[in-house]
C-alpha cells in the first residue's frame, strides 16, 4: 500500500481539484493500464492503417517481407475501383435504409405507440425486440438463413412462394430488413427514455389545442428529443457503417451485390491477401466515418446555438 504521505507533499494547488486526495501521480497510475491497451490496440492500429495504405503489403509472397512504398497509388486505385464505388453505394443504402430510416423510425414508432399500450403488451414487445438485439450474431444470421431459405424456408412456406431465392434475388433488401430486425432495440430503448423526459404538460397542451398526432410530434415532442435523436442517429449510423454481420448472411454475394464496405475490406485484405490495398480502403472508411461524425456534431452544435 502506498503511504498517505504522498498526498501531503503535493503542492496545495493540485489538491484543490482532487476530492479524495488521490494525488496526480496515483491518478495517472489508475488511468495508465486502460490507456496502454487503448493506445496499443485502438490508436496504434488506426495510425498503422495510415502507413499500410501507402504500401503494397500483401499477406503472402515477396511483398509480405519487403513491402514497397507506393505513395498515394493505393488510394487512387481504390477511388478508381468500380468495386469500391459499388461497395460505397451499397453501404450508403445499407446505412440509409436500415439505420437512418429503418431502425430510427421503427424504433421511435414502437416507443411512441407502446406508451399507451397495457403493460403486458409493452413488456412482451420490448422483450422480443430486445431478444433480437442480444442474441449472438452468428445465431441470428442462421435464423435468417433458415427463414429465407430457397427450398424450405419459413417465409416461402408462409407466403406460398416456394423456390423464391430471396437472398439471391434481393440480397440488399434482405440485409437491410435483417439489420432493422437486429438493431431496432437500441433506438427503441433510447426513444422510450427520451419520451419519458417529455413533460406530460406539453403533450396535454397540444391535445387541448386540438393538434393532430403529426402536429403533436412536430411541435411538442421533436424539439424535446432532438438531442437524443441526433445521438442515436450518430451511433447507429457508425455501427451500421462498420457492421460485419451482413457478411454472415450473404458473404457479399451474389456477384458483389451485397458487398458493403466491411465485406469489401475483408475480402480484399484477407480473402485476396492484398493488405496494403485493404488498409487503404480502411482509411477511406475511417475518413467517411469521421465525416459522418462531424456532420452530426455540426447538427448538434446548431441545436445548441
Amino acid at each position, binding site marked *: 500500500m502506498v503511504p498517505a504521505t504522498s498526498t501531503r507533499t503535493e503542492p496545495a494547488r493540485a489538491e484543490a481539484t*482532487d476530492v479524495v*486526495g488521490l494525488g496526480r501521480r*496515483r491518478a495517472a497510475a489508475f*488511468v495508465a493500464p486502460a490507456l496502454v491497451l487503448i493506445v496499443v*490496440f*485502438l490508436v*496504434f492500429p488506426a495510425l498503422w492503417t495510415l502507413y499500410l495504405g501507402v504500401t503494397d503489403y500483401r499477406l503472402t509472397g515477396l511483398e509480405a517481407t519487403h513491402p514497397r512504398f507506393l505513395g498515394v497509388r493505393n488510394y487512387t486505385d481504390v477511388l478508381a475501383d468500380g468495386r469500391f464505388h459499388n461497395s460505397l453505394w451499397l453501404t450508403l443504402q445499407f446505412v440509409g435504409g436500415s439505420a437512418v430510416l429503418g431502425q430510427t423510425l421503427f424504433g421511435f*414508432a414502437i416507443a411512441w405507440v407502446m406508451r399507451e399500450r397495457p403493460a403486458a403488451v409493452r413488456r412482451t414487445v420490448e422483450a422480443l425486440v430486445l431478444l433480437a438485439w442480444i442474441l449472438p450474431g452468428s445465431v441470428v444470421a442462421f435464423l435468417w438463413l433458415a427463414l429465407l431459405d430457397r427450398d424450405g*424456408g419459413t417465409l416461402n412456406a408462409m407466403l406460398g412462394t416456394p423456390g423464391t431465392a430471396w437472398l439471391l434475388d434481393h440480397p440488399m433488401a434482405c440485409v437491410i430488413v435483417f439489420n432493422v430486425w437486429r438493431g431496432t432495440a437500441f433506438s427503441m430503448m433510447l426513444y422510450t427514455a427520451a419520451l419519458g423526459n417529455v413533460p406530460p404538460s406539453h403533450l396535454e397542451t397540444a391535445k387541448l389545442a386540438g393538434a393532430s398526432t403529426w402536429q403533436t410530434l412536430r411541435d411538442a415532442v421533436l424539439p424535446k428529443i432532438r438531442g437524443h435523436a441526433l445521438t442515436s442517429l450518430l451511433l447507429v449510423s457508425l455501427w451500421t457503417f462498420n457492421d460485419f454481420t451482413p457478411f454472415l448472411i450473404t458473404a457479399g454475394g451474389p456477384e458483389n451485390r451485397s458487398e458493403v464496405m466491411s465485406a469489401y475490406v475483408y475480402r480484399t485484405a*484477407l480473402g485476396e491477401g492484398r493488405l496494403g490495398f485493404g488498409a487503404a480502403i480502411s482509411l477511406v472508411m475511417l475518413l467517411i466515418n469521421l465525416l459522418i461524425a462531424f456532420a452530426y456534431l455540426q447538427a448538434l452544435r446548431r441545436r445548441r446555438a
Partner: protein
Amino acid sequence: MRTALRRIAATTFVSLVLAFFALPMLWLASAPFNADPKIHVSLPSFTLENFRVLLDDPYALRSLRNSVVLAAGTAAIVVVFAALAAYALSRVRLPGRDVLLYLLLLLSSIITGTAAMVPIFLLATQLHLVDSHLGVVLVLSGGLLPTAIFLLKDFTDATPASYEEAARVFGASPLQTLRHVVVPVIRPGLAMVGIWTVAQVWGDFLMPFLLLRDPDKAPASVIMYTFYTEGGQPDLALISTFSLLYSVPVVLMYLLVSRRYGFRFHGGIKR
C-alpha cells in the same frame, strides 16, 4: 369513431411488430427439439436426441468453454481497468479529459468494426498473439474500454463525493476509501459494465475469426459455421441445438440484469 380507428391501427401495428420480431425466432424454439429438423418451422416430433448428439461433438462444448474464457477474461480486464480509469478521471480534474474521452469514444465506435482489421491482424502477428486467447482478449478490451470508461465515469460522476470525503475525514487512506466506500457504492455500475462486456464478447465473430486459426480454440460464434454433414449440407439438428445452448447464457444474463438493475439507459448516452 376516430379513437376506434386509432385503436385498430395501433393493434395492427403491435401485431405486425410482434410477428416481425417473433418469426425468425420460431425456428430456434422448435428445431432443437425436432427429431428431423427442417429449415422451415414445423411442429416438432419432440425429442432431446439432438442435445445428446451435440454433447458428443468434440468441438461444440469446447467452443462454449472458449467463449466463456474470452468473455470472462475480457470482462475482468475491462471492468478493472475501466473502473480505475473512470474513477481517477471523475475525481481528479485533468486538463482536456472530456475532449480526450469523446475522441476515444468516437474512435472506438469506428475502429472496433472492420476498418482496422488489417493492422490489428498484423499487430497480433508481430506480438505473437495470433492463435491465442490472450490476443483476442486484449484486442477486444482495447476496443471496448473507451465506452466502458465513459459509462462508468458517468456513474461515478453521479455519486456524491461526500462519501469519499467522509471516509477521508475519518482517516481512511485513498486505497481504504476505494475498498470500503467507492467499490461498494458503484457496484451496480460495475455489474452493468461487466455484463455489457460479456454480451459484446459472447456474440463477437470477427476478432476470433480473424485471430484464432486453431479450431480447438475457436469460440462458439465461429464454431457454428463448421457444423456440416458429411454431404456438405449444414447439419440443422446440430446447428439449431447449438444455437439454443449458445443463446441461453446471454438471455439469462439479460433477465438477471433487468430484474436487478432495470435495463434502462444511464445518463451518458442520453445527453
